[in-house]
């Protein structure tokens, strides 16, 4: 395993692919692997692409990748698609739209299935991003599953988040709602040659202006019109992404945001570790089932019982 990490750091694509599989499978060595990877992270710029199914996320990812490659920057892509909640299988179709980027040795594309995770990403997507970062990719683009309104995990992973919209999916109330609309650093109205595109751009602009009135923010999301398939507007999108990136750097927000992300991630790890340890102790001795019997028989209640268990493990506060 140390071998694999060393090979990744030396630039082995094969080793990176294998290491990602271990992380995806939540191999018992995952923590060790990520501990070895972590010192080499922090250099890649992480771009999130999210939006409803069929709005053109994959095609836009392909175009952005091409533009970055023209600037001779290297790119890793993580493309997430849903796992079936029934069979656990998945059809990962994002690669189809990334034909121009595949075949370029400096572009590494990895499809990931959500494996039951809600929120738009797989549980291990953030770690896969770190591996690509440590490998030395200048950019890592994360394409989420097609999201509805509530899947906003990408904002915890990406430095810049692009929310892709397409005309024809709802009236102006949709663009006023909470959730995905709130995490955009940039909005893209893709398929701008379709009816309703200009209206949608207006609605999004109205929302952006409303946001600015409701709370002051140093960054006002830009709204860009594209026709990704025809490569129209993609240069403007790239410019907008660069603008946001420069803003983050110059304002010091990049560092602040990353600190907050690190805090959340570390808290998450801590929570996982605590619950694993506690559950091992609680479920290990067989008394838990006896307790459940008591609770079912109404001799005890679950609320006090849980408090007693926790006090028993951690002692008095």
């Amino acid at each position, binding site marked *: 395993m140390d071998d694999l990490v060393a090979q990744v750091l030396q630039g082995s*694509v*094969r080793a990176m*692919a*294998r290491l*990602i*599989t271990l992380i*995806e*499978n*939540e191999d018992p060595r995952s923590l060790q692997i990520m501990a070895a990877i972590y010192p080499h992270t922090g250099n890649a710029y992480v771009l999130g692409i999210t939006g409803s199914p069929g709005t053109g996320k994959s095609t836009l990812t392909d175009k952005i990748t091409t533009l970055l490659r023209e600037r001779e920057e290297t790119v890793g892509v993580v493309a997430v698609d849903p*796992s*079936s909640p029934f*069979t*656990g*299988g*998945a*059809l*990962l*179709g994002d*690669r*189809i739209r990334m*034909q121009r980027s*595949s*075949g370029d040795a400096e572009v*590494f*594309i*990895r*499809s990931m*299935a959500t*494996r*039951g995770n809600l929120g738009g990403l797989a*549980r291990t997507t953030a770690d896969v991003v770190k591996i690509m970062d440590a490998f030395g990719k200048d950019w890592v683009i994360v394409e989420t599953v097609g999201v509805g309104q509530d899947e906003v995990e990408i904002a915890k992973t990406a430095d810049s988040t692009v929310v892709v919209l397409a005309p024809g999916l709802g009236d102006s109330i949709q663009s006023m709602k909470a959730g995905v609309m709130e995490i955009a650093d940039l909005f893209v109205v893709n398929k701008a040659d379709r009816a309703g595109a200009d209206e949608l751009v207006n609605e999004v602009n109205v929302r952006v202006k409303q946001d600015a009135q409701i709370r002051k923010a140093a960054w006002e999301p830009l709204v860009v019109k594209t026709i990704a398939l025809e490569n129209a507007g993609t240069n403007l999108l790239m410019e907008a992404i660069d603008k946001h990136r420069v803003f983050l750097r110059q304002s010091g927000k990049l560092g602040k945001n990353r600190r907050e992300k690190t805090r959340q991630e570390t808290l998450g790890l801590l929570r996982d570790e605590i619950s694993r340890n506690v559950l091992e102790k609680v479920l290990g001795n067989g008394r838990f089932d006896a307790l459940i019997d008591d609770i079912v028989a109404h001799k005890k209640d679950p609320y006090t019982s849980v408090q007693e268990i926790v006090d028993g493990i951690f002692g008095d506060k």
Partner: protein
Amino acid sequence: MTAKKRVKVIMAKPGLDGHDRGAKLLARVFAEAGMEVVYTGLRQTPEMIVDAALQEDADVVGLSSLSGVHNYFFPRVVELLKEKGLDDVLVVGGGIIPEEDVAGLKKAGVAAIFGPGTRTDDIIKFIEDNVSRS
């Protein structure tokens, strides 16, 4: 809680023919069987297919051809996989493959050829039995 290892399949159509109904159906069949299937779409060069297998850390590459180009493309994919050190990837093929070509393809390293009428259960079973990765 821990995610178990899932078989990862690259489903690809090498060459120029546009008949992808079978490839798409099988991609879905494999997903229904609990596998993670990367569908790469039409008009793939062997290099593109092998790149996908490399980056995706695939266990299986499924090739479909209905235009008679299998004798070039299938062995070429096997060869390139070997060049990249991906010897343990299971390569299977399907489509319209004349009986007399099957032996040659197997000799070239294609593990199995599934012609029209093959039961999808048999294909799944073959993959599950022959996938080599731990």
